[in-house]
């Protein structure tokens, strides 16, 4: 199929938007991944991208939709119209994917923690726990359990704490 002038203009406009969306999605994941050393500066950039990308990705999606409308006003062939819809769908998909916390997909978070009396627990005596004593309250967090969640948000006698491992 021979490209039209407005088709080429559409591609020239949409391709950078797609690439930018891809960068916003992938760069933090690329930098912040296990078994890789993170440089100080690249980590700072990756975290900044992760924090600020949402409005940019919304703007990119809006821009690509606007381009799609512009293109559809000129393009009458349905096959090309359908093919061109892939661009905004891809940008929206990337924007949605950027909202997913892949670390919590790998290690799903623990909701409000529940506790049982020490005497009722069936934990073996040699199991290691992280233990705290806040005011009059003593709590233990089995390491084999919290090492899966990595983060446990808790309130101990009114004191908010985060148990990490």
């Amino acid at each position, binding site marked *: 199929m021979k490209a039209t002038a407005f088709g080429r203009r559409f591609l020239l406009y949409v391709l950078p938007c797609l690439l930018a969306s891809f960068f916003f999605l992938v760069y933090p994941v690329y930098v912040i991944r296990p078994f890789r050393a993170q440089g100080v500066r690249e980590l700072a950039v990756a975290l900044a991208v992760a924090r600020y990308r949402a409005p940019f990705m919304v703007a990119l999606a809006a821009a690509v939709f606007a381009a799609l409308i512009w293109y559809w006003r000129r393009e009458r062939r349905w096959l090309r119209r359908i093919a061109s819809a892939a661009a905004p769908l891809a940008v929206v998909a990337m924007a949605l994917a950027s909202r997913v916390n892949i670390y919590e997909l790998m290690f799903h978070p623990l909701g409000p923690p529940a506790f049982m009396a020490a005497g009722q627990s069936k934990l073996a005596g040699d199991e290691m726990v*992280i233990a705290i004593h806040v005011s009059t309250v003593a709590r233990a967090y089995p390491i084999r359990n919290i090492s899966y969640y*990595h983060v446990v948000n808790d309130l101990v006698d009114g004191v908010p704490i985060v148990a990490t491992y």
Partner: protein
Amino acid sequence: MWRAEVDGLRLRFHLAGINDQNFLMRDEETGSYWQQITGAAISGPLAGRRLTLVASDELTFATWKAEEPHGTVLRELAADIPLYSKKDWDVRMLKAPTVIAYPESGLSPRELMVGLHGFGASRAFPYDGLLKEKIIEDHLGAEPILLVLGQDGHSVRAFRRRIPGVAAIADFYRVLAGQSASAAALLMDSATGSEWSFQGCAVSGKSNGVCLERVESIKDYWFDWRHFNPATTVYRTHSAR
């Protein structure tokens, strides 16, 4: 273990990434990113702020239960049991690769250390060495300290070696099992002749009822401790120096 608030604002944290094999957290309230091992915010509106450490121990459940019979322990979720680490997870982790190593130290990256930070200094004690020595008297900066292995052979605590009300810095000795009338007695000190429990409290003698001040410690892999405590020193036994 961190106090999850800054300037009165309660923070709820989520696992959010990894930095040099130490994980990052993100708080819901401000979107700031925090380094787990240091409790420092490294990105976001709270960047530069630090969480306050909550005193904690890494103990065997039996030791903890004996000390805190009225305590409570985190319930397992039945659906998550298959996901929890296996019993030998710590042995398996020794073989996991690291992206950081400090070969000039002569220590293996995954050598387990007991790390202390305070009095203007950081110091790491090889855990295996502590298992053999059972009691280590040393200094953290200029502060005399004591590391003690519990009767269970796994739990470790650290204390300042100053007995409240006593001018002299005491030396501590391990009491052999069965030697004392008190089952809790683990140590004896040279300044007052008192016997001391694993909780660092005197259970007999002139200092009966007095407790040593705890020094926070953390068990960590050497590469991780060294990476986030670059000025750390390492305790070596006389034979290893």
